[in-house]
């Protein structure tokens, strides 16, 4: 079993972790993903241990990806507890070169073995060592990005609910802006367009990491998605529901005019 595979070949939760397998399913379903590879938990362990063969294998496989890279943990399933572990693990945006990928993978390994992760595991009664896979993808430089529910998560109504802002989607996910809000019927009819207040955009730095860019005054309250983008999002929502099933929570980005799927999870109702 090869522990370093293109995303489309990540099929086993127990080897690659649930995030990688979820993205693998998307790739096999023809959804528009940024190109990427998945690393098995034992490969991550070997890279973190400094094993040269494993490091060379990972770096060799990642050379086909355009830099910069986004490197994310993919928790290997533990009694279905993955969702609870989301906050314990790490995402490294904008790793500038494949030559420092081993450092990024080591950081991910330690995030799953940190004091807070271990304390949490003890609290929930998990006394075996954690295993973590890794997803490595080309990092997009998006014009706009955001999140979409394929159904209303509060009412279950059949409407797409979208929040979006300029730049990387982390501004929306981390609540750093008031995003634009949209509602679309599955027929494609736009039910609501609500301008937000988007003073910053998160962008990549050439040397790695991200920074907050001030948004030009005329764009702060201007809608960041138009009819063409909303129609593309509605098609993506339908396609995601075909591949994964109903009620999905999606992260997306528009880069170079193209729509990309970054993540697709089941909706958690509150």
């Amino acid at each position, binding site marked *: 079993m090869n522990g370093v595979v293109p995303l489309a070949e990540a099929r086993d939760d127990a080897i690659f972790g649930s995030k990688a397998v979820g993205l693998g399913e998307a790739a096999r379903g023809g959804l528009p993903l940024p190109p990427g590879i998945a690393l098995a938990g034992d490969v991550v362990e070997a890279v973190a*241990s400094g094993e040269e063969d494993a490091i060379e294998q990972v770096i060799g496989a990642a050379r086909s990806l355009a830099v910069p890279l986004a490197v994310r943990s993919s928790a290997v399933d533990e009694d279905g507890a993955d969702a609870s572990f989301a906050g314990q693990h790490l995402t490294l945006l904008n790793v500038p070169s494949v030559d420092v990928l081993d450092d990024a993978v*080591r950081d991910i390994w330690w995030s799953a073995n940190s*004091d807070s992760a*271990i*304390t949490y595991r*003890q609290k929930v009664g998990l006394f075996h060592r*954690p295993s973590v896979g890794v997803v490595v993808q080309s990092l997009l430089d998006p014009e706009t990005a955001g999140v979409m529910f394929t159904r209303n998560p509060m009412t279950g109504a059949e409407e797409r609910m979208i929040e979006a802002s300029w730049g990387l989607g982390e501004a929306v996910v981390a609540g750093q802006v008031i995003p634009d809000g949209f509602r679309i019927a599955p027929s494609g009819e736009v039910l609501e367009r609500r301008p937000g207040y988007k003073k910053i955009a998160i962008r990549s730095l050439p040397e790695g990491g991200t920074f907050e860019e001030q948004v030009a005054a005329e764009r702060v309250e201007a809608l960041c998605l138009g009819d063409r983008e909303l129609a593309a999002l509605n098609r993506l929502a339908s396609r995601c529901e075909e591949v994964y099933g109903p009620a999905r929570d999606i992260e997306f980005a528009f880069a170079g005019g193209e729509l990309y799927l970054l993540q697709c999870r089941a909706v958690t109702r509150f």
Partner: protein
Amino acid sequence: MPGAPVESVLRVPLFSELNEEEAQQVASLFKQRRFKPGETVAREGSGGAAFFLIEAGEAVVTVAGQERRRLGPGDSFGEIALIDEGARSATITAASELRCYGLTYWDFRPLVQGNAEISWKLLQSVVGRLRDEQAAGR
């Protein structure tokens, strides 16, 4: 060669009774870890599960917000957590770019459980420290 340098491991009081071969087994379990300046390495009161040996850089030890001392290359912290996974007794913060070798409870325990000779020497080391503490009247 993956792992920490054997000579650094042998300078740690807990491992000082081990012979070279045993110390090599322990050293091979360490993984490198880096911290940015200002990053919290360990937080007082939170559960701990790893032991760290400093390879390069400087760290500050604080207890209840008061600085107690500074750690540099060759210094170590967190060895008790390797055995009891108990709460950290101090906060350790990276004062500069900090490079460490870290050993987790999960990696250490199977080695000790599978090797009676190493277990006995660790026990001797712990008891020796207890005896020193008693002699000092603490």
